[in-house]
């Protein structure tokens, strides 16, 4: 997924689409922001300047679907002999004691199985993007509304962690169709709800490794970056912006090409 931050107006249509696609409910008390759930959250940043020069940007943030570098040996990234060597990891997967979440090599999607989750919240703590939410409450669905929920997404119960799944149910449906017709899952057959809902076309979704897909071309742009790249989470969500201050802020002021030199010793940012 590639999100163009210069096109994003912060309208929040992606959040709303995500909530209705994935059976995310409205809680009794939504002023309790710490305990509210939005798989796709829109953050606001600004360039820190006062009035006439103020600029604002919005960062929609789904789960990054961090790519594990080596399957079967979670945590290996921490023990690399040469710290400069690229080694990726999925933070939430390596800490889960219940294997309720895993990284799928085939699709590159990080799954989360609520029925297996024991609610220890290690993953919530480990995720550097705050993409995971803990379910504090069962959703108080008004009478009759549970019948209107999507049958393709199982509603989560209280006491488990949950997060964006790149609308995996849509992939399953597209794959089913491809199996019957003997074709392949095309770029437009599988699009996430937020991609479809974005009125300004800021979100592009497709296979990063497939040269025919638009995302593949977009990520080779020099304006493309990922959040907190120095953590080696190797996210599958890319952002792009032509504004330099946006790019800088998104990586905590660490420049792209000299990550380690600047990241380690400096303190107090």
């Amino acid at each position: 997924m590639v999100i163009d931050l210069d096109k994003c107006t912060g309208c929040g249509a992606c959040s709303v689409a995500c909530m209705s696609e994935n059976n995310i409910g409205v809680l009794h008390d939504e002023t309790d922001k710490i305990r509210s759930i939005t798989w796709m959250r829109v953050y606001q940043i600004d360039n820190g300047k006062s009035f006439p020069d103020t600029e604002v940007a919005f960062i929609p943030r789904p789960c990054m679907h961090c790519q594990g570098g080596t399957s079967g040996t979670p945590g290996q990234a921490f023990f690399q002999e040469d710290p400069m060597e690229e080694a990726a990891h999925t933070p939430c997967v390596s800490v889960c004691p219940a294997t309720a979440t895993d990284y799928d090599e085939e699709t590159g999607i990080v799954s989360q199985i609520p029925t297996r989750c024991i609610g220890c919240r290690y993953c919530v703590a480990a995720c550097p993007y705050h993409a995971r939410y803990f379910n504090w409450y069962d959703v108080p669905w008004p009478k009759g509304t549970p019948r209107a929920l999507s049958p393709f997404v199982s509603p989560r119960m209280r006491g488990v962690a949950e997060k964006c799944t790149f609308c995996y149910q849509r992939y399953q449906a597209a794959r089913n169709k491809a199996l019957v017709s003997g074709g392949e899952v095309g770029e437009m057959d599988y699009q996430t709800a937020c991609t479809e809902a974005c009125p300004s076309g800021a979100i592009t979704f497709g296979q990063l490794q497939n040269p025919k897909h638009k995302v593949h071309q977009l990520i080779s742009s020099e304006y493309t970056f990922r959040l907190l790249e120095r953590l080696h989470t190797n996210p599958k969500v890319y952002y792009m912006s032509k504004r330099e201050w946006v790019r800088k802020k998104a990586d905590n002021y660490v420049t792209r090409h000299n990550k380690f030199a600047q990241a380690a010793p400096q303190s107090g940012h």
Partner: protein
Amino acid sequence: MGLVIGSAFGFWATPTILYAEKAQPLQFNHKLHLEQVSDSCKSCHTLREDGSFSGIPSIQSCKECHEAGSLMGDGKNEAAFDEYLKKNQPIPWLVYSRQPDCVFFSHAAHTASAGLECAQCHADHGQTTKLRPYEYNRLTGYSRDIWGTGPIGLGGPPHRMKMDDCAKCHSENGVNRACFVCHK
């Protein structure tokens, strides 16, 4: 002795306590239909164009062959069936294969793509002359009756459709075992 009692409890008592039975609304002779109508399960249990499985045929597909009153015997069962036909009312079949909410199962992936035969999972269901009673778990409400082998591979009545069975088959055949392949 303890072992015998223990085994009896495990294989007989626990399932009896845990599962309740319900009768199907009507009887259905799969064998007869296979012989007279077609030679394949797929002529009534179809895959839709989008790859989803249409499940149990609707009353409309019964009607394609059974005009009210025709092509039937004159037992009680047939009379009841006739009622449904006349009213054009769906038959409230109890579906053996209903799975928990968190399970995703694709018939397309298993039949159209992997090429499994229906009998691989449903055993000889297509050759039966009567429907088995519907057994459901008293706690969860889910039915258990779908699978081809009994406990510890002894054969006997189909007993289960557990996650282990899916996982085992997927490992044996080198199919992806990521959580999201079967979960939602």
